[in-house]
C-alpha cells in the first residue's frame, strides 16, 4: 500500500444533515429534536466520572478490533485538551488523568474535519507524524470515527489504537462506525435527560410564580376594588358598584384558575401506594365535599351499590368530586339536576358511571374535553379551573384505568371510569 492510500480521506463520511434530521452512515435518520446547544460539561461529557455505558463500548472496541486501546475522546478546544469520557488500556499517567493536551491528540483532527481518520503507521503519515502522542503515548496505528452533538456537529471521536503499524480494513472501519452511532445516541440520551430536568425546573418556577408572584397583585387589586366600592357606596353610584362587582368576580375567577393550576401540578407530583379502596367511601367523601352545591341546587342523587377497587382513596375522591361537580355545574336550566352513580363488573375491571341530566357536551368537543383549559363551555362562564377533567384523566391513568363519556346535548352526559377491581 502506498503512503497516499494509507491516509486517504473517506469520501462521504460526513453525516448528511437534512431538514428531517441527521442521516448516519448506515442510512438511519435521526430526527432533529430542536435541542438547545449543550456544552460538553452540561452533558457530563467532560470532567465527569466514567460511566458503564461508555466503558462498555470502549471495551467492545478492544475486543472486536483486537486492539489494546479504545477511547471515547471529547475535544475541548477552549481548554486545549481532549478528555477521555471512557478509556480502555491507556498506560499511566494517562489512564488516571483521563485527558491530554491537543498536542497529543489524533482525535482533534477527526473533530476538526468531521471525518474518519485512518492512520496505518503514524511515523510515516505527514498528517500526524509530528504529533506528541507518538513518542509519549506510543500511538502508531490509529482509527478514529467522529462522534456528534445533538445537532450533528462533530465533538470528538471514538478510536482504536495500537502501538504497531496495522492496515485497517474496511470491516474495522464499519465496526467502529457502528460503535460511534451508539455513542451519538448516548449523547442524545444525555441531552434528553438534561432537557427533562431543565423543563422540570422551569415548571417549578412557573408554579411558584403562579401561586405567589401572579396571585399577590390579583389579591391586592381585589382589596383595592373593595375599598373603592366602600368609598363609592353611598347609594348614588349603582353603575359603579356593579362594575366593581364584575371586576372582583373577574379577579376571583383568576384566582380559581391559579389555584387550580397549582393543585393540578401538585397532584401530578404525587405518587400513591395502591391498595384496596372502597368506592362507596370514595363517592360518599366526594359528595360530602360538595354538600353545599348539592343542597343549593337541590340535586337528586342516586348512588347504587359500589364495589372495592385497587387504588388510593384521595385521588379517587378528587376524581369523583370533579365528575359530580361538573354534573352540577353544567346542569340544565330547565329541570332539577339529577346525578346517578353506579358500577358494574367487567372482567378484572369495574366500570363506574356518573350520569347526569345536564346540558350535555357538544359532539365537536370529543376527547378534547379532557385537555387542560379546553372545557366544552366558554371558560369565562362561572369560576372553573379549566383543569378538572385533565386532573381526572391523570388520576385514571395513574390507576391503570380508562375514562370515557357519552353525551347527548340537551339530555345529559354519562362518564364512565374503568378501574381495576379488587379481588381478595
Amino acid at each position: 500500500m502506498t503512503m497516499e492510500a494509507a491516509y486517504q480521506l473517506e469520501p462521504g463520511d460526513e453525516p448528511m444533515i437534512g431538514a428531517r434530521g441527521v442521516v448516519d452512515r448506515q442510512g438511519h435518520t435521526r430526527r432533529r429534536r430542536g435541542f438547545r446547544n449543550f456544552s460538553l460539561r452540561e452533558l457530563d461529557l467532560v470532567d465527569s466520572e466514567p460511566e458503564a455505558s461508555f466503558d462498555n463500548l470502549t471495551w467492545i472496541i478492544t475486543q472486536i478490533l483486537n486492539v489494546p486501546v479504545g477511547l471515547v475522546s471529547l475535544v475541548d478546544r477552549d481548554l486545549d485538551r481532549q478528555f477521555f469520557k471512557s478509556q480502555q488500556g491507556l498506560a499511566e499517567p494517562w489512564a488516571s488523568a483521563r485527558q491530554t493536551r491537543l498536542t497529543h491528540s489524533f482525535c482533534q483532527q477527526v473533530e476538526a474535519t468531521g471525518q474518519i481518520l485512518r492512520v496505518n503507521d503514524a511515523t510515516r503519515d505527514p498528517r500526524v507524524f509530528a504529533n506528541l502522542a507518538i513518542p509519549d503515548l506510543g500511538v502508531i496505528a490509529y482509527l478514529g470515527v467522529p462522534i456528534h452533538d445533538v445537532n450533528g456537529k462533530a465533538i470528538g471521536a471514538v478510536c482504536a489504537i495500537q502501538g504497531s503499524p496495522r492496515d485497517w480494513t474496511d470491516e474495522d472501519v464499519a465496526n467502529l462506525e457502528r460503535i460511534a452511532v451508539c455513542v451519538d445516541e448516548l449523547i442524545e440520551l444525555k441531552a434528553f435527560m438534561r432537557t427533562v430536568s431543565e423543563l422540570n425546573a422551569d415548571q417549578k418556577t412557573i408554579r411558584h410564580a403562579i401561586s405567589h408572584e401572579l396571585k399577590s397583585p390579583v389579591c391586592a387589586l381585589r382589596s383595592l376594588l373593595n375599598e373603592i366600592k366602600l368609598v363609592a357606596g353611598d347609594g348614588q353610584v349603582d353603575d359603579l358598584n356593579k362594575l366593581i362587582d364584575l371586576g372582583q368576580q373577574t379577579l376571583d375567577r383568576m384566582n380559581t384558575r391559579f389555584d387550580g393550576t397549582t393543585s393540578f401540578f401538585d397532584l401530578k407530583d404525587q405518587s400513591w401506594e395502591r391498595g384496596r379502596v372502597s368506592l362507596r367511601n370514595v363517592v360518599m367523601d366526594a359528595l360530602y365535599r360538595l354538600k353545599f352545591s348539592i343542597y343549593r341546587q337541590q340535586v337528586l342523587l342516586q348512588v347504587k351499590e359500589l364495589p372495592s377497587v385497587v387504588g388510593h382513596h384521595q385521588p379517587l375522591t378528587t376524581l369523583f368530586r370533579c365528575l359530580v361537580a361538573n354534573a352540577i355545574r353544567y346542569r340544565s336550566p330547565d329541570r332539577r339536576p339529577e346525578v346517578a352513580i353506579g358500577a358494574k363488573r367487567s372482567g378484572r375491571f369495574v366500570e363506574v358511571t356518573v350520569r347526569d341530566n345536564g346540558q350535555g357536551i357538544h359532539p365537536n368537543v370529543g376527547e378534547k374535553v379532557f385537555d387542560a383549559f379546553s372545557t366544552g363551555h366558554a371558560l369565562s362562564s362561572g369560576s372553573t379551573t379549566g383543569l378538572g377533567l385533565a386532573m381526572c384523566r391523570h388520576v385514571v391513568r395513574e390507576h391503570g384505568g380508562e375514562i370515557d363519556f357519552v353525551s347527548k346535548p340537551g339530555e345529559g352526559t354519562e362518564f364512565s371510569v374503568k378501574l381495576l377491581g379488587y379481588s381478595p
Partner: protein
Amino acid sequence: MSSEKRYTIMFVDDDEIDQLVYQRIVRRVDNVSESIHVTSAEDALDLLKSRPSFLPDVLFLDINMPCMSGLEFLDEVSQNKNMIKKFDSIAVVVLTTSIARADEQELQKFACVRRLESKPLTDESLELILTSMKRSG
C-alpha cells in the same frame, strides 16, 4: 363591641397596597386600639427588640417577602431567648396568597403561629380572627 377588649395589632408585609388596605380595614373594625405597619421582617424584628414594652396581641405576617421571609423571621424569633418569651403572648397569623404544602409543614414547627389566613384580608376575616383570639385567651 366598645366594652370588649381592644387589640394592638401589627402588620408585617412588604406589599404597599396590601398595607394601605390593612390600614383602611383597621379603621373600620372597632375592636382594634392600635395598629402598627412595617414593610419588612427586619424592621419588625428591630422594633420588637428595641422596645421591650411593645407587645402586640396579634402579629399578621406575610410569608413572601424579599430579604427576610416570614419563615426566616419566625426562625430568628425562635432562636432568641427574649423573643421566645415575648412571643408567648403574641399570636401570629400568617398571611399568604397560597399555602404551599411544604410551607404549611414548616409553619407547624412554630408554637406562636395560631392561624394561616389566605389573602386578601377582609373586614370580616379580621373581625373573625380577633374574636377567635379572645376565645382562646
